[in-house]
């Protein structure tokens, strides 16, 4: 369906990534946000708390990030598109209820404007070291979706996509910004509402007495009923059957976990998204995401000037990972170069998918600034030899 015009601030704006993300959420139909202040993400909720009272949304500043994430999962059950916003330390606290959202299949969006870590780390400076946490942070087996924007415009666009994906697959979607994109101000074009496609939450057509909250009818995700519509359903963080009732057995666990995993793993080809540049015939492909993708472009230009055939693969959706594409490229290239503002996270995934057919070379960075493009260039030159 088309976006609700109430939330769409159509026009050409000059916004930072945090504000653009907030506008994207409102355009996507988000009407409930719970959050706790944390640099460098707070501008997202500041924007929303100013605009929400004028568009029928509710923002509440909770007592901590545990509460924020719990409130977001609660709100998801009224059919209200809901979101929370944080940075590394808060992201750690949210893991508990991100797991609940995954288990209950409550659609929602979690924005992490990454800063340097571990622990309190570098509150006002950039990091990209929560990428594995986004994928594996909560205990148990589940899969989810993570996106990473490289510009304020993309922060707007991809926030809408994050909501759409959360509705399609009924998962918490991790929106993995970084401090640079969050605080970078650029032109952001917000199109008219009728040009923005949003995925509505389909309500079950079943009668209340027939409805089962986790019945899938051969599909990947179950039917949805809103709390308060007379369905009187039950949902739990415990392993459950199609009725949503707890069942403590290996058999039920297998069925429950397998579906949670396969609704993403099995649809990965539809979900993965990346951009490529000059990968055909390349000897080296640089894999990057977020702000580092923009920095890497400069390093690639420097290497090309020295005659190296370098391609670029920018991850837009980071999880699920584009395994098939990396496997294909591994048969062609000598090496992948993976700059990221951490000490080697996504490079491990590249290495796994390359499976020994090409080397995966990390360009690590502890955080606090972006890479020096020269360093990326030097690594490319070494990799091409």
């Amino acid at each position: 369906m088309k976006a609700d015009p109430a939330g769409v601030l159509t026009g050409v704006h000059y916004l930072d990534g945090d504000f653009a993300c907030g506008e994207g959420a409102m355009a996507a139909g988000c009407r409930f946000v719970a959050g706790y202040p944390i640099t460098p993400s707070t501008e997202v909720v500041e924007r929303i708390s100013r605009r929400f009272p004028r568009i029928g949304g509710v923002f509440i500043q909770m007592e901590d990030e545990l509460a924020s994430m719990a409130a977001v999962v609660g709100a998801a059950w009224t059919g209200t598109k809901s979101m929370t916003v944080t940075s590394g330390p808060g992201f750690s606290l949210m893991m508990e209820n991100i797991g609940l959202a995954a288990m209950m299949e409550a659609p929602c969006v979690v924005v992490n404007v990454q800063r340097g870590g571990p622990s309190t780390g570098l509150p006002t400076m950039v990091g990209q070291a929560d990428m594995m946490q986004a994928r594996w942070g909560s205990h148990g087996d589940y899969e989810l979706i993570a996106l990473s924007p490289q510009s304020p415009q993309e922060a707007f666009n991809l926030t809408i996509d994050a909501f759409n994906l959360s509705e399609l697959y009924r998962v918490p979607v991790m929106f993995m910004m970084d401090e640079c994109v969050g605080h970078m101000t650029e032109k952001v074009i917000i199109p008219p509402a009728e040009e923005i496609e949003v995925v509505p939450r389909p309500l079950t057509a079943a009668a209340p007495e027939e409805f089962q909250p986790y019945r899938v009818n051969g599909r990947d995700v179950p039917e949805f009923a809103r709390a308060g519509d007379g369905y009187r359903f039950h949902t739990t963080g415990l392993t459950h059957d199609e009725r949503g009732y707890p069942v403590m057995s290996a058999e039920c666990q297998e069925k429950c976990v397998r579906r949670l995993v396969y609704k993403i793993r099995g649809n990965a080809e539809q979900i993965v998204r990346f951009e490529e540049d000059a990968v055909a015939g390349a000897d080296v492909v640089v894999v990057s995401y977020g702000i580092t993708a923009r920095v890497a472009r400069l390093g690639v230009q420097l290497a090309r000037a020295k005659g190296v055939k370098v391609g670029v693969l920018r991850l837009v959706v980071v999880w699920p990972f584009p395994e098939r594409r990396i496997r294909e490229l591994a048969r062609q290239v000598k090496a992948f170069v993976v700059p990221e503002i951490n000490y080697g996270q996504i490079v491990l995934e590249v290495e796994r998918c390359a499976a020994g057919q090409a080397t995966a070379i990390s360009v690590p960075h502890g955080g606090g600034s972006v890479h020096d493009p020269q360093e990326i260039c030097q690594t490319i030159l070494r990799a091409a030899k």
Partner: protein
Amino acid sequence: MSTRKAELCTTGGESTAVEPADVTPEQHPIAPYIRMDRMPHIWCPTCGIGTVVKCYATALGETGVDLNKVAVVSGIGCTGRVAGYMKLDGFHTTHGRAIPFATGLKLSRPELLVTVFSGDGDLVGIGGNHFIHAARRNMDLLVILVNNFIYGMTGGQNAPTTPLTAKTSTMPYGNFERPFNLAHLAASCGASYVARWTCLHVRQLTWAFKDALQRKGFRFIEVIAPCSTLYARLNKLGTGFNLMQFYHDNAEVRHGTDTSEVDIGFQDEIVCGKFVDEARPTFVEAMDEHNRKILGDKYVPMPPSGGFIPDPNPDPARQGGAARPGTCVPGSDSDANPNRDGVASGLCPGRPNPNNPDSAAGRPS
């Protein structure tokens, strides 16, 4: 003992055995409120939680609230199972987070009557921070806290409510940590309604639930409940029946008592009654009133029916679940769009998935 037993268990005279032939199957009065397909429940014999559920269900029936608009949210623990047994929208959430989960439910659909039903360890141990802040905000929640002085489900560990000197599995020589006075905690944080009863006081408890269901804001009802399996056994207090007898002998009803005076000592007097009943603006009322004052006509409150934005043209094919065989051109390569900046994108809704054992598309047609 036997005299007391007769007083407690029968309405008068000696109880007599009933011949099986005289028993006609009939529905329990609260069966319509219970997921009977989940019975029997997991609670131990003589546990107090069932009594609290009975009183709550009775109160729901007698107040005549629209059950379709009632949601029950629980955390983890013995009392945490209540949400799963009531035939209402029931949410069994994470440990300690029932109150913030319920806050999200309430704020995103304000017409819901949201009850938080959980235990002492859940709500004021791991969830203590959420408890005080919800009370401070006068969040529109009815919070029923079943206090059995101990962590039951995990095997009898010390709780923030365990009375001084009482033995628990992690305080085997007796508790030396001062416990919370929960009524005082709730009242001093701003709860608009505070009451305490024991499981023995079924009529008063039912009345308190009815009273609270008809009020607004943060309403806190503490129910002292027997845990014979752990609390009574570890402290050699007999059975659940003996604890009920203790309540009978030691519960003092003193409405309006200053909550600073209602601490609970080990095997000491339990002051019961309604301590606080003050109407003050709830979170939603305060938000609406303030925003209207400041923003005037520009203020758009969350509709009572919530922030759900319905699809004007619902796609029947998606009503049975979201991801489905789609028509878009899938595949990672075609998804790569270097011109994506500047164009808000709509996503393709997925397509048959041969790898998914649960996908329709993965099955032979």
